[in-house]
């Protein structure tokens, strides 16, 4: 898909051209290319195409000469002493440096678009310069990150080049992939609509009934004008002329009127069936989509949620499925029947009287196009209005949450004026939208009426006996049919917009459904019953993007019941260690073992039932305190909940709440302090009784007294379990069995508090002394 994105949107090669690849590899002593990137700026900052490629022993730069021929310059990687990336507003420069004082070995320039691909190369070279090799792990990382199907399809001889292509394409396409809702199969509008319509299959009966009813409505709508013409020509006029007996005429008229009444009755019955079945059907499809979507979202890995905004996912489950309901319930039928109606009406009018029929039908394509054009023009105005509307909401979202700052700096009047000016502006824009549509529709109707006047002008002489014969009944039928033209023209004119809106929503929904969870259970997973709590990391490497390693060869063995403190500078990899223990991600190299079993072979759901987490910012769901504590064990007895709350030092403050354990908390619920929420989350973990417990900065955002209470609760919680605790306040980890210092993705130091303090120049000792100075 990434290569499709590059070809479709970016307009640069989706991969290194094969011929050039061969030339580069030839220049690099036949070594395969492991990574490459496109430098899209030349030295004069014009857009161009040069390629930087990395092999096991060389870095090569391919540039075109003045004659357009590729020139490849390869340098030995051993010559590289340092790398320097100089970021600019849009132009970045990467310099490969040799011996100090010498000119750079290579210099390339590129825009932000290429930065991900260059970052990959820079990372590998940086590691090599620092004496670390990552390229072997890199191959393993990439293969681990790929779906099993693609791994199986690879041939050994083609593996390395294909992997380089994929890493390049992923890096370049990523911003678009993250920004856009992309679906499998290239996302063509027709395929998306057909895929959406497949959701109707389980409801074939309802769909058939709804469509049949809609067809009946359309057909019956054509009958009354015909009956009206028949009455005038065959009953009223003959009776007035004396050609038909009054009694017979009255009898025929009443039969016709009764027939018309029956038609309207059946028509409305069909309308009822159509509305009922299609609305319900649409609701069923929306329900199915919502259920499938939500179930799929729950199964997706954390990496997906880091790419997509929460609000966007909520919109997909709610607003997008609602819009699809509207499309299925009404759009599909309206559009198809309007087409049928328009064709049917045209046929009837031309059959009744081809001369008058042509006057009515010839302008129809033009009218449809005018409505389409108006929709597009209005859309542009709406974009402008939407932009101005966002300027209004910007003021609100700035100043309402920041009202204390506004008041503290006495800026109320300025903010009122800012809001007023933008409010005026958006009002003016919306008024322009109103001016457009209120002008267009009367003009359109005037055009329709003009054709009606033309019909009259053409018909009257014929009704009076000049030219081709035209009966009054046929003319009346004709006029009645013309009134039915407007509605289908309007629907067809807006058809493109209706389908576009539905396709957009379908894209957003299907994008989620097409996303594969990165953490999946094997066919016959191992169930650890129960988990003993031995946690081993065996040369674990991990990279979120498959290239830049956050963990680099971490190895440790923790026995059941140990309390391990994870310390080190921010961004060192501590949270990644606990994310791997919880199996939110799988390692890209090495193995995480629980009680000796590779975590990738373990039944994830069953395993997670036996681990607990207390996070820095505890999340409480909307519900009662009781429901929040017993979230993982809804059947827990009240006594067990109270015991857990007592262990968490939470029972006392819960009892002081007006409604005790039945107090509603969480979003829109009772406001609790950070410390109170933390203690509820500890109670949740106590009740869960995990074998492995993860504490991620559990006491970092509370005051000293609250911290003491939480620490007390944690001391009770950790007894008898394997615990991994991340803390910046090193004093909270004095009781740890061992401390692991994680720095730059490596296990830099390990030992007890006293042992690590005894290390001269040690990282832990330095951090500890720094914190003592701050106290």
């Amino acid at each position, binding site marked *: 898909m990434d290569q499709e994105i590059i070809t479709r949107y970016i307009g640069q090669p989706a991969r290194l051209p094969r011929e050039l690849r061969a030339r580069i590899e030839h220049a690099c002593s036949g070594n395969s290319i492991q990574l490459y990137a496109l430098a899209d700026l030349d030295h004069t900052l014009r857009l161009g195409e040069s390629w930087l490629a990395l092999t096991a022993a060389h870095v090569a730069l391919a540039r075109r000469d003045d004659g357009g021929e590729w020139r490849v310059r390869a340098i030995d990687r051993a010559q590289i002493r340092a790398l320097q990336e100089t970021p600019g507003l849009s132009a970045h420069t990467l310099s490969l440096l040799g011996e100090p004082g010498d000119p750079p070995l290579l210099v390339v320039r590129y825009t932000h678009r290429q930065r991900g691909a260059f970052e990959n190369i820079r990372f590998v070279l940086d590691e090599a310069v620092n004496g670390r090799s990552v390229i072997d792990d890199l191959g393993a990382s990439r293969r681990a990150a790929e779906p099993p199907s693609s791994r199986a399809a690879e041939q050994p001889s083609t593996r390395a080049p294909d992997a380089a292509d994929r890493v390049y394409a992923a890096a370049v396409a990523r911003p678009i992939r993250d920004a*856009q809702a992309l679906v499998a199969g290239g996302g063509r509008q027709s395929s998306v609509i057909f895929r959406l319509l497949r959701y109707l299959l389980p409801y074939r009966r309802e769909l058939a009934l709804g469509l049949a009813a809609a067809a009946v409505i359309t057909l019956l709508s054509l009958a009354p004008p015909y009956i009206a013409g028949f009455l005038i020509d065959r009953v009223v006029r003959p009776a007035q002329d004396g050609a038909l007996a009054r009694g017979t005429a009255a009898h025929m008229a009443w039969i016709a009127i009764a027939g018309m009444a029956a038609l309207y009755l059946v028509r409305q019955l069909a309308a009822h069936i159509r509305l009922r079945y299609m609305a319900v059907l649409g609701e069923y499809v929306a329900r199915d989509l919502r259920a499938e979507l939500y179930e799929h979202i729950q199964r997706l890995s954390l990496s997906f949620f880091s790419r997509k905004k929460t609000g966007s996912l909520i919109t997909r489950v709610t607003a997008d499925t609602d819009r699809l309901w509207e499309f299925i319930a009404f759009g599909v039928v309206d559009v198809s029947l309007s087409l049928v109606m328009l064709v049917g009406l045209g046929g009837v009018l031309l059959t009744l009287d081809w001369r008058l029929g042509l006057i009515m039908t010839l302008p129809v394509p033009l009218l449809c196009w005018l409505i389409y054009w108006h929709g597009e023009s209005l859309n542009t105005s709406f*974009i402008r209005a939407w932009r101005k509307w966002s300027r209004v909401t910007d003021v609100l979202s700035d100043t309402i949450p920041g009202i204390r700052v506004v008041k503290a700096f006495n800026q109320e009047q300025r903010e009122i004026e800012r809001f007023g000016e933008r409010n005026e502006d958006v009002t003016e824009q919306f008024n322009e939208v109103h001016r457009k549509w209120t002008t267009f529709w009367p003009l359109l109707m005037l055009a329709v009426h003009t054709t009606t006047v033309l019909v009259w002008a053409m018909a009257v002489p014929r009704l009076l006996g000049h030219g081709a014969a035209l009966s009054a009944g046929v003319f009346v039928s004709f006029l009645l049919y013309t009134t039915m033209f407007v509605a289908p023209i309007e629907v067809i004119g807006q058809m493109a917009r209706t389908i576009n809106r539905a396709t957009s929503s379908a894209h957003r929904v299907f994008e989620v459904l097409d996303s594969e969870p990165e953490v999946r259970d094997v066919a016959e997973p191992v169930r650890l019953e129960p988990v003993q709590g031995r946690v081993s990391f065996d040369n674990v490497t991990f990279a979120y993007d498959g290239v830049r390693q956050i963990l680099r060869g971490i190895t440790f063995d923790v026995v059941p019941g140990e309390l391990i403190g994870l310390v080190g500078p921010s961004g060192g990899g501590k949270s990644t260690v606990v994310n791997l223990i919880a199996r939110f991600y799988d390692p890209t190299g090495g193995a995480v073992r629980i009680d000796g079993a590779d975590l990738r072979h373990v039944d994830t759901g069953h395993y997670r039932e036996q681990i607990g987490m207390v996070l820095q910012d505890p999340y409480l769901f909307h519900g009662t305190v009781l429901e929040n504590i017993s979230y993982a064990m809804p059947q827990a007895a009240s006594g067990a909940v109270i015991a857990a709350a007592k262990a968490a030092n939470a029972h006392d403050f819960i009892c002081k709440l007006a409604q005790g354990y039945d107090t509603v908390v969480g979003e829109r619920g009772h406001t609790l302090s950070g410390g109170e929420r933390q203690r509820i989350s500890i109670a949740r973990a106590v009740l869960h009784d995990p074998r492995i417990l993860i504490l991620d900065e559990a006491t970092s955002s509370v005051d000293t007294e609250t911290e003491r209470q939480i620490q007390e609760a944690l001391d009770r919680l950790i007894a008898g379990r394997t615990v991994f605790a991340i803390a910046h306040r090193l004093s909270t980890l004095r009781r740890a069995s061992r401390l692991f210092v994680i720095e730059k993705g490596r296990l830099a130091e390990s030992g007890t508090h006293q042992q690590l303090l005894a290390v001269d120049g040690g990282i832990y000792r330095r951090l500890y002394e720094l914190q003592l100075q701050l106290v």
Partner: protein
Amino acid sequence: MTTLVISESSDEAPSALSLEVDENGQLFVVENAADDPPVPVRLRQCFPWSEPHRHLSLRDASDREIALVDDPAELDDSSRAAVERALGIAGFVLEVTRVVEIDEEVEIRQWLVETASGSRSFQTHLDEWPRVLPGGELLIRDVAGDLYKLGAPQTLDRKTRDLLWAFVDL
């Protein structure tokens, strides 16, 4: 306005700043002592849009500011030329000369433009609007983070203005 040189010791008096640039556009601070090798620095504009040619922060490989040039005009000729060359690279953004097409797709807007550096297509989020710069020019940021600068609306051709009408106040 003076050229301030920040040295490691704040007690040290500001000294004259001498700069040079190599053929690749790399800027160097030349230390006073003749034996000291030139220090490679990167240039950051403090106000890239409101005062792009003034208040230039010179930073070493660790991204530590080692000098702040308030006004390059106060530098000697060769240093000023070096700063201007480095500024051309650090402050480079794609200058859009003509907008050819703007299309809306699912969750992104697709732009096809002509720039002073060549033609280019890029994508923006649907809620990403061009920003009006202090000089009246327009600035667009694409999903990858690249910046595109357009002249003030009145300097653009008719078709470009028509295409931009929904996105900026012309």
